[in-house]
Every structure is written in structure tokens, then in C-alpha cells.
């Protein structure tokens, strides 16, 4: 487990920072508003590399908003305004020289409901690859097999790669979406409640997948499920009303939270 360099003791500044070589995403004084209504307030947070970081918090606390900000998906919505700083591997993602499509390739995103495209399983995984450059078919096939294997789906679909992706079950579809994201070899994988629409067995498979993937990339997980956060994440950030309330090692946040607010939420006493 990575040791935080500094752990602020003050309850007002719940900031852990990591050494630059350990820090993948660095969010600094980030502020975001929907049509003038603030959704994130001066958020400061570091996400460590090759770890699973969970964002928890009540509905509307801004955790999904933050996740989408990292991918710059808010660019699609004109009514969103932001200020502050998000850096991926030290580069400001809002910098003018930052290529948004390249950023989105490096920061993959998996959504709450599985959203495979209306094409074959093969084409779904090849979608991101085809956007970038022409690959020889052999190479592409290899990457697709690797991505599907990484997403623990290869054995289930290898005989029907050219069948419609919409014929898969919900859990398989979600793993396919993860494979599709992995195929473009991202540095970060953002997961927005990836298992909330799935049955318990599919959920367990996704969680196992998340644990296995952290050797390859950095994962950020938004979840409503406390047990899930406790099971799979290394670090946990608790957000409320667009503010970061507490951030720390998952064990510490769940067993010995520094703030009463965090404890109330985790133990379900929150109103």
C-alpha cells in the first residue's frame, strides 16, 4: 500500500498528496457549475496511480460530475462552466494544447447502464481502435482478444464475436464495455456505478475485474454501494454537496473516519 506523503490533520483540509511519480490525477481547487448552479466546490484531490479510488457520497453530491469532468464529457453540455485545475500525469487537461479526443482515449469511461453499440461484439471492441489508426487485421484481432481476455469475457464470447452485442446479458455487456475501453489502452479507467444495474453474480465478476485491472491502470470508481467500495477500493473519497469531506485509505475511512459526517453516512445514519 502506498503511504501518503503528508496527511493533513486539520478536519477542514482533508488533503492527502502523493509524490508526483505516484500521482496519476491531480485535482486542484476545481469548481464546476451547471447553468450557474455549483455542483463541485473548490475540490482538491489526488488520485494515486495503479490504485482503485472510490468516490462515495449521497445522490447529487457531485461524484459523477467529478468523474465526467476528468474525461471532459461536460464539453458536450454548453451550460457547464468550470474553473480550477485537473492534471493527468502532470498535464492540465483543459490546456489549449490538450487534444480532447486523445485525452478521452487515455481516460476511459464506463457508465452506469451498459451501452454497447448496435454492432457485433468484435466491432464494439474495435470501435476505439478504428478511430485512431488503421491497424493490420492480425494486430487488431490480437488487441481485441487481449482486451476481451482482460475484461474476463473472452471465453464467453470467442465463438460469437460477430453476433450482435445486444444479445449479451447485462453483466456481459458491461464487461464488453470495459473491454472496449481497455482496447484503446487507457491510463485511467473511470467507472460510474458500473454494477448498479447488474445482478449480484455479475456484480461480483465486475468487482473481481476491477481488482485485477489495477495492475495495468488507475481506476476511479463511483458507487452507492458501501460494501462495494470497501471490497474493491484502496482509497476512498467521501463527497457531500460538491465538497470533499474526507479522503483517505479505504480501511481508515470505513473503520475509523475522522469526521462524524463520514461515519454517519457510512453507517447509514445520514438523513
Amino acid at each position, binding site marked *: 500500500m502506498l503511504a501518503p506523503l503528508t496527511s493533513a490533520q486539520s478536519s477542514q483540509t482533508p488533503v492527502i498528496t502523493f509524490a508526483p511519480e505516484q500521482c496519476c490525477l491531480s485535482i486542484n481547487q476545481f469548481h464546476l457549475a451547471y447553468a450557474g448552479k455549483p455542483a463541485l466546490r473548490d475540490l482538491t484531490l489526488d488520485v494515486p496511480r495503479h490504485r482503485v479510488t472510490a468516490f462515495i457520497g449521497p445522490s447529487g453530491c457531485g461524484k459523477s460530475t467529478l468523474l465526467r469532468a476528468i474525461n471532459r464529457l461536460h464539453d458536450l453540455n454548453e451550460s457547464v462552466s468550470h474553473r480550477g485545475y485537473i492534471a493527468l500525469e502532470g498535464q492540465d487537461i483543459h490546456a489549449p494544447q490538450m487534444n480532447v479526443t486523445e485525452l*478521452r482515449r487515455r481516460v476511459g*469511461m464506463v*457508465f452506469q447502464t451498459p*451501452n454497447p*453499440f448496435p*454492432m457485433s461484439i468484435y466491432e464494439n471492441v474495435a470501435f476505439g481502435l478504428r*478511430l485512431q489508426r488503421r491497424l493490420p487485421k492480425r494486430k487488431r484481432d490480437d488487441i481485441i482478444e487481449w482486451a476481451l481476455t482482460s475484461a474476463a469475457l473472452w471465453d464467453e464470447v470467442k465463438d460469437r464475436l460477430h453476433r*450482435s452485442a445486444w444479445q449479451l446479458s447485462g453483466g456481459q455487456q458491461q464487461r464488453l464495455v470495459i473491454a472496449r*475501453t481497455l482496447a484503446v489502452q487507457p491510463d485511467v479507467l473511470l467507472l460510474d456505478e458500473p454494477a448498479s444495474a447488474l445482478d449480484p453474480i455479475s456484480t461480483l465478476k465486475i468487482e473481481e475485474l476491477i481488482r485485477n485491472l489495477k495492475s495495468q491502470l488507475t481506476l476511479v470508481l463511483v458507487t452507492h454501494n458501501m460494501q462495494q467500495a470497501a471490497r474493491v477500493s484502496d482509497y476512498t473519497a467521501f463527497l457531500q454537496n460538491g465538497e470533499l469531506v474526507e479522503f483517505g485509505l479505504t480501511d481508515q475511512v470505513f473503520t475509523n473516519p475522522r469526521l462524524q459526517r463520514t461515519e454517519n453516512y457510512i453507517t447509514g445514519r445520514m438523513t
Partner: protein
Amino acid sequence: MKPLSEQSKRRVNWLNDGLWPWLCAACVALSLLMLAALLTLLATRGLGHFWPATLEEVTLTSGDIVIGQPVRETPLPLNAGMERLYFTGNRDINGANWRWIAVDDISAQTTPNDLIRLERTPWGDFIGRLVAVESDGQRLTGQAAWDYITTALAQPASQQGSSDLLLITADGHALRQPLSNVSHFQAPNAMSWGQKVTAWGQNVWRFLSEGPRAANTGGGVWPAIFGTVLMVILMSVIVTPFGVLAAIYLNEIAHQNRLTHLVRIGVRNLAGVPSIVYGVFGLGVFVYGIGGSIDNWFFSDELPSPTFGTGGLLWASLTLALLTLPVVIVATEEGLARIPDAQREGAVALGATRLEMLTRVVLPMATPAMLTGVILAVARAAGEVAPLMLVGVAKLAPQMPLDGEFPYLHLERKFMHLGYHLFDTAFHGEDVQAAIPLVYATALLLVLIVLVLNLTAIFLRHYLRRQRGNEC
């Protein structure tokens, strides 16, 4: 909360319990019944016309003999029995093709096998008997004459040689008829059932493949079929990209504010504008405005006779494209709106640009909806008559809009259209009785063409869905 026993004793509400599904079912049944009745009427009246009907030889109480095809009966006024309409042909001799005969006046009625029916070019049908054929001085009678006519008519007109038919009518009027003027020869009473079916098929084929004769009250409708289909295809080619791009702008690109909302309401309301208004617009803007300018710039040596400055295929297609544009926009927009945002975000999150997202994910998913829009547009355009009367349809177009002459597709030419042909046959023909069955047949054909065009698009849509799996 009442006790359960009291609830179950609630008064039976006949409307609530059981009747309303029947009411809905009755509405469906009534619609289906009306549709079936319409199609049956069109099919029996329209297709029955081509059946080689039996010819009757009728002796009247006055001693007159009439040969003709009985068509229908109507009651005479003052309970004076029934009156029967006979198609007697021989307009050159009798001055009329039709004769009403009171049923009570008929003393004898037979169907001899030697009665024949000829289709001739100047005077319409002849009904009577064949006496002999004179060919190059030879005189053929009996079976030899029949065989001669059958083989001669099967050959092209140039090789038929000069031969004359000697004919006699029911009242003993003799007639010499050059064979070159005869287009069809039939002895329906002598035909077997199989021969009648073959003749019926040939008649239907001639209706579909030949041009009109006798001021649209005879002959076929091929130019009208061709004109209708060509115009609808041209219209689809124009309206589909326009409508789809407009819908993409409205749904995917424009900011969703009050203005887009107003535009959307406007587009929806355009679909309700009466079609003749589009005709007026097309006449004013396309024909006189744009067409007149084109004539001034490029065809000034032909003036004052207009080239593009008069109704034609291009202007008609454009007008109908304008008419059906709202349909395509609305259908496409609904298809685009049904696509979940998760699909768009999924594509964008993989590093797709907005254009790539649109072309690779959104548009393929919206294709069935677009095709639905085109289907509706085609169905509407194929049946539309009113605007076409102003912008380019003709009662009888001398040339087809597509031929072997450069530039092959003649966009400025007037064309024939089945809907207008129907209207013209029904209301502007001289021979109303002859027009009636043709009206039914043309109407049936129009319905069938719309059906075929729709089915093509539906199968295309189905195929596209199958290709992508079982979605949408």
C-alpha cells in the same frame, strides 16, 4: 377501507368490466372491414374489366337484333321493370358504343360461338360476326380465316401485308375492315376457360404496358406508372438528405432553446399545410421564378416557348419534396431522440469526435427511423395529385421523361401520373361508361404501387435491423 366481502359485491360496471376491450376491438374490426371492402371493390371492378366477357345476341320484341356485352342493370322509373346496359361497340355504324335495353323488351337471348370482338384504332371496338378474310385476292372463310387473323396479329404491323376483314353486324350491316387497323381479335364465346384466363392475363399486361388510347378512356397506363415511380424516386433522392441533415441539426447540433422549439413546431405544422398550397408555391417559385430565370439565362433562343419555365418533372419532384420534408424531419428527429445519450457519451468517451460519433453510432441507429420517414413521404407523394396539376403533370405526355436520347433524363418534360390519370379518366373522358372500369383498375394500380414502394422500404429497414442484430 371496506371489508373484502363488500368490495366483491360492488355493482358490476358494464363499461369497466369487459365492454371496453370489445369497443376497441370493434373499432379495429370496422377499420379492417372498410379497408377490405375498398380493396375488394377496386379488385373486382378493376380486374373484372379485363375478363373476356360473354357476348350476347338479343332479339327484341320489335324484331331488332342486338349483339353486345351486358354490363349492368338498373331499375326503370315507375316500376317499369329493369333496364340493361349493353356494350355494343360499332360506333362508326350506330353512332354510339352503348345501348340501354329494357329487359321486358327482350324476346330471345343466345350466346352463339361465332360472335367476335375486334379492337380497331379509329372507331373503337367492333362486335359482330366474321364473314371472310380477303388477303391478296384470296378469300378465306371458316377456321382458315380465324387462323390467318391470329397469326397475322401476332406479327409486327409492318409484316402483316394488306388484307381486309369482311364483317357483318347484328342488323345485317356489312363492313370491310383493313386488318392493319385492328389491334386485337377475340371470340370470347368460343373460348375455353383456360383460354379466357390467358386472354385475361394478356389484357392486364396490355393495360400495364401500353400507352393510353381514345382520350385516356382506353388502352393502358404504362406512361403514368413510369411517371409516378420516376417522380417518387426523384423526390426521395431530394428529400432524404435534406430532411435527415435538417433533423440532425435540430436534434444534435442546435442549442435546445425557445427558438429551436419554435422551429420544431413550425416544421410539424408544415406537414398540415394543404397540398394544393405547395402546388401554388411550386408554380410561383420553382416554375415561374427559378424556371423562368433558367430560361432567360440558358434557353433564351427558345423563348417565348418555355423550357424550364413551365411545369415539368423536376419542379414536380421539388414541390413534392418540399411537401414531404416535414414528414422526413419529424420521423428522423424522433429516431434520433430515441437514441439514449449513453450511446453518444460512450462513443465520445472512447475518443470519437462529434462527427465520428454521429456517423458511426448515432446515424446507423437512426436509419430505421429515417427509412420510416421516407416510407411515409413516398406513400404521401405517390398519391398526391392536387399540387402536380399546377407544376408539371400532363393529361397525355408525348414523350417519356426517360429515354435513349441525350441527356436521357429529361427533367424539364411534362410527365403522366397515375393519380392525375385517374382524375382525368373519371371526369374528362367522353365515354363515361368505358371510363368506369378503367378508373377502378387505375385506382387499384395506384394502391399497389404505393404498397410496393412501401414494402421495398420496409424490407430495407428490416434488412438493416437484421444486419445489426435484434435491436431497436
